[in-house]
């Protein structure tokens, strides 16, 4: 499904700010894998997702999605295969455009845009139904500007947009981190439902260890641009937060010093 092999990425090469973000990274995902990704700040989690999405070019290695080599494919072309939700709720939507216009653009992901009407009447009904299931009352505000929505509402909408056309792979980068605990829980629940329903393959970065253990069928831990721990199936179900902390210290030889993770 997804195959990352020997991928490396160094930012600001040859300057004082040189930073190796990914170091000979390897990862293989099977169809319908739902993988949670954890790791300290700067471990390379976002970079891994950005490399898969083609936000920046990779320095070495190959990335295949569904056996298509996408290593050199520009971001907008890869978008056909990918659904993405970002940490920043502002990143996934166009604030000055209507809710339904945002959905209509997402609905056309991977299709050629032409001079036909940007949104049809029939689509609007589909969007009405889709918004209803979010349970946020957005279905009655379809022609409101997205800029008027709260972060949580925008994030739920982005999630809906990312999965309106079934993506081959769903990339979630701490998509609940900016939300209050209740909204975060709701968006996470929604994520779970949608992934299950559409039988999606997904990569979800999170700082919440409990979520990382509970959700999905596989968990990977990253450190300094590498995967240092990879666990799935029953073994993953039995994990405790303390196990993860221990693993981290063992693999990295450092104390785990991330308040956000310890608190959760």
């Amino acid at each position, binding site marked *: 499904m997804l195959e990352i092999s020997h991928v490396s990425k160094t930012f600001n090469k040859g300057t004082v700010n040189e930073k190796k973000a990914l170091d000979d990274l390897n990862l293989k995902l099977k169809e319908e894998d739902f993988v949670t990704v954890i790791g300290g700040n700067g471990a390379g989690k976002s970079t891994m997702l950005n490399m898969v*999405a083609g936000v920046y070019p990779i320095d070495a290695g190959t990335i295949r999605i569904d056996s298509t080599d996408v290593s050199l494919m*520009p*971001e*907008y*072309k890869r*978008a*056909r295969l*990918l659904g*993405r939700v970002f940490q920043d709720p*502002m*990143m*996934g*939507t*166009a*604030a*000055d*455009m209507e809710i339904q*216009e945002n959905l*209509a*653009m*997402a609905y*056309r*992901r*991977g*299709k050629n*845009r*032409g*001079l*036909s*009407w*940007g*949104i049809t009447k029939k689509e609007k009904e589909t969007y009405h139904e889709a918004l209803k299931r979010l349970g946020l009352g957005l279905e009655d505000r379809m022609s409101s500007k997205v800029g008027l929505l709260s972060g949580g509402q925008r994030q739920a909408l982005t999630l809906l*947009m990312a999965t309106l056309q079934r993506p081959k792979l769903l990339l979630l980068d701490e998509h609940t981190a900016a939300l209050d605990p209740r909204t975060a829980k709701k968006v996470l629940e929604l994520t779970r439902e949608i992934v299950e329903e559409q039988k999606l393959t997904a990569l979800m970065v999170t700082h919440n260890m409990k979520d990382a253990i509970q959700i999905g069928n596989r968990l990977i831990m990253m450190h300094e641009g590498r995967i240092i721990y990879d666990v799935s199936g029953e073994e993953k179900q039995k994990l405790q937060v303390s196990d993860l902390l221990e693993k981290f210290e063992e693999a990295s030889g450092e104390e785990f010093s991330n308040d956000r993770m310890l608190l959760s």
Partner: protein
Amino acid sequence: MGILLAVQGAVSQGVLWGIMALGVYMTYRVLNIADLTVDGSFALGGSICAAMMTLGMNPWLSLLVAIAAGALSGAVTGFLHTKCEIPAILAGILTQIGLYSVNLRIMGRSNTPLLKLDTMFKQLMAATGLSSAWVSLITGAVFCAVLIGALYWFFGTEIGSAIRATGNNENMVRSLGMNTNVTKMLGLMLGNALIALSGALVSQSQGYADVKMGTGAIVIGLASIIIGEVLFGRKLAFGTKLFSIVVGSVIYRIIVAVVLQLGLNTDDLKLLTAILVAVALSIPVMLEKRRQTASYKASLNGNHKEEQEGGHAGN
């Protein structure tokens, strides 16, 4: 009577220049790019239209040539900005400067009179028997109406939506599978095509094209957009917004006509326009700051009272 005539002339000029303001709006507000190609592409429209007509081309066909040339100049800025990754402002300035020489080459001199030629306005005057000011006014109004209708339609289409979204959130547009280099390019081409069309219409209406006719056009365009926003507000439906820009352009011309009648020297006009735009842009910022300070002070007073009242209750 003099002032009435001056105002009528101003209105008809305002409508023709309003098309240029619509073009500026495409980049400045829709794409959220400050495109400085404007001064060059406006003069390009005028120059190429005059040159074509001098060669014997039909005045209406010459408009089409001007539109195509304007789109091409937008494409040059687009190429410099998207492919060569030159910051948009600089890319626009480069094209604008280059166009100065190009326009001189096109005309072969710095000024081309059209007085002896059959302009579209002269044709329409002969056909309708109306005065020159009325013909310019009506022609300009018809052009504006058709263009606003066409733009309204275009920005409702799939491609048009993607261009609007690019000005909002490029990152999202790419993640939804649209090449933002293409949307930016299209926006710049569309904007400069409108600007060149306006230049061509203005040159036919004033009876000559001049290589310097575009100087300061960007500021006039901005002034029109801002006057429209001040009068109608910023939260408008798209069609109304486009209309407000043309109205803004007309009002700008009326202001100019009035101050000239009051004895202002034409040489000082550009300074006046620059001041007008600077003031109009800074007023909202000042107001917001004042509002913020005022509401902070009000909250201080409010807290003060509460504290006192709390104190009494405690005693």
